[in-house]
């Protein structure tokens, strides 16, 4: 579905930008090259580069204060980098290009005294929608997030989670080509997290490119094909998630059995979860050696699974290494 109520200014400018862009640029929704930003002499973003493909959901990871929000703000031209280049939707981050972007900032806030309808219509109009189309889209999106009955409520009457969903709806009113979400799931109850994830997937099916930051690794594993991990403003890990996992090799073996042998060669750690023994393999250890130790001890094995490292493990390992903790 496309919105037919875009203002001539918004619609016309967008077309010119697409026509003039090269094929390579058209394949990326966001391209960030060697971004650097310092505040008060401290480099908070230090040579970050990545690109977001058209139509993908991309995970942007990093500990608190690692430079994620600053990078997103530079991508949106809210703040200017000291050096580096941002390519947005096939061009530079002009206001015309930014009008085709939906943004949910980390620290959410709407005009507390305003009605939900008024503030969302305002946001829609700023993104180039005609007033009547913006109102229709507000109703549609509020219905989608289950808050249409709060259309005429004042923002201050909403709970924190509701307010977050309203702002999320506001970021999607104009059916943006690129959606940038800074910690979108924080503070939401599990039902609303599922709802938000469903909507994000719908947006992807519509053709939007989505980048979101989060601390919840399972969300990234569930939704993203590619990830970027930064710490202290520097890129630690970047690429397709499965490739990153495979590159780290097999690290965990999970065996479901009634008991465990007295000794298992080559493992560094053991965890029991859901009735299964999970062995973390040390350097050079083979998964089949673990299985053999069960068989040699005459223990019946109901399930044997060789697991790739989780994103959580990769996150902890990489950040710890970057901070010289391991």
């Amino acid at each position, binding site marked *: 579905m496309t919105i037919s109520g875009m203002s001539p200014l918004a619609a016309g400018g967008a077309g010119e930008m697409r026509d003039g862009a090269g094929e390579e640029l058209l394949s990326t929704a966001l391209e960030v090259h060697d971004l650097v930003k310092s505040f008060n002499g401290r480099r908070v973003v230090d040579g970050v580069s990545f690109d977001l493909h058209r139509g993908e959901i991309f995970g942007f990871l990093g500990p608190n204060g690692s430079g994620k929000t600053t990078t997103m703000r530079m991508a949106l031209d809210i703040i*200017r980098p000291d050096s580096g280049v941002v390519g947005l939707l096939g061009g530079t981050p002009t206001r015309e290009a930014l009008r085709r972007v939906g943004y949910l900032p980390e620290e959410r806030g709407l005009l507390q005294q305003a009605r939900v309808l008024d503030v969302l219509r305002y946001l829609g109009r*700023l993104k180039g929608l005609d007033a009547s189309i913006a109102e229709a889209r507000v109703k549609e999106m509020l219905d989608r997030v289950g808050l249409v009955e709060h259309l005429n409520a004042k923002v201050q009457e909403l709970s924190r989670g509701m307010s977050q969903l309203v702002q999320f709806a*506001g970021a999607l009113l104009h059916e943006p080509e690129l959606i940038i979400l800074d910690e979108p799931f924080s503070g939401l109850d599990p039902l609303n997290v599922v709802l938000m994830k469903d909507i994000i997937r719908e947006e992807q099916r519509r053709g939007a490119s989505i980048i979101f930051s989060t601390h919840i690794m399972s969300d990234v594993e569930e939704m993203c094909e590619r990830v970027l991990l930064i710490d202290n403003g520097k890129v630690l890990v970047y690429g397709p998630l499965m490739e990153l996992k495979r590159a780290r090799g097999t690290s965990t073996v999970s065996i479901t059995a009634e008991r465990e042998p007295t000794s298992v060669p080559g493992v560094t750690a053991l965890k029991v979860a859901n009735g299964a023994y999970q062995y973390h393999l040390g350097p050079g250890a083979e998964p089949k050696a673990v299985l053999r130790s069960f068989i040699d001890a005459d223990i019946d094995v109901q399930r044997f699974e060789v697991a790739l490292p989780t994103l959580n493990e990769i996150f902890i390992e990489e950040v710890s290494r970057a901070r010289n903790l391991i």
Partner: protein
Amino acid sequence: MRETLYEARIVFEEEFRRNIRRRAWQITTVIVPLALLIALVAIPAIRSITASDEEPKPIGYMDLSGEITEGQFPELAAFASLEAGIRALVDDDIEDFFVVPADFLKSGEIEWLTNRSGIFAGDDNRARFDRFLTVSVVAERLEPDVLNRVLSGSSFTRVRVADDGTASDEDTEINEFFVPFILAFLLMMSLFLNSLPLFQSVSEEKENRMMEVLLTSLSPMALLAGKVLALGISGLIQIAAWIAAIALLGPRIIEQIPNAGDLQFAPATFPVMVLFFIVGYFLFAVTLAGIGAATTSAREAGPIAAIVTMPAVIPVWLSRVILSDPDGGLARTLSFIPLTAPTTMIQRIGSGGVSTVEMLGSLAVTAAAAGVMLFISARIFRAGLLMYGQRMTLRAVWQAVRQAG
């Protein structure tokens, strides 16, 4: 440019709609017309309540000096003895009883006996008796015309002589003092009532990060221009409602007050007032918007905003000095300081005699200052986003402005 105008128009429409829906704006807009309507109804009603239908009771007196002649003041009753006078006072036959001692001509002392309480009770009777004494003492010594003039006093009409020698009648005190003062007061109120919401709106959007979302859709200049225009137009509507109410109802109210003179407005005052409102509002609005953007919260920005708005109040405080000498050094100096110019000039123009060159000069200085502040505030708008959690210092603002580049 076309893009900025388009964005500013959207901001204007949404901000204007939101502002005129504010209860505070609606109340302050109707409060002046409403107060005048109440005054129009209340003044005759109060006068009719306070004016008694009963015939005034006579004033009693006893003359021991022999200087008092009788007959011209029928409300007076002479008593031969103190006891008789006090008895009449107790019986409510008279309201007050005055005893004129034998040495009155030398001492001027009068004993005033009354059974009423209240510090001002009987003041009117004392004044009547005082006048009666004057007439009694001099009546037989003066010609009737002279006596009449002595009693009536003199009436002054001030005539202003212009530099070219032409003379024109000055207005009465109400038009010389109260009209300029009231107009300056209303201008100051309107400046505050419409620039403070702008400041609060910017502060709130900064504090809750709404501005971060807005600035991904429009330029800082468009956001600032749309906000300033929206609140400025709503301010103009407000001030127009006030002026219309004063022009329509003011003269009728003044008619109800005895000896108040005629309320007259120089027609030129209104367009000049509107012009000074526009530049004055613009200056305060963009300055306060810049402060709102440069600080982390409305709470932090409040005291700074109070310091900036204080100069608009100073000319209203100094009204008596300015209106006593509208062409004096103080009045002229304040006319060319941008933050004090609007409320100073409206008083000077109301009292007449300000040259067109001086008026245009004051307008130009204020408008130029507003233009400079617009530039700085637009830079601070973007820079302010970098200043979350930082206390506002001039150095921090300067650094942020440079980083925003």
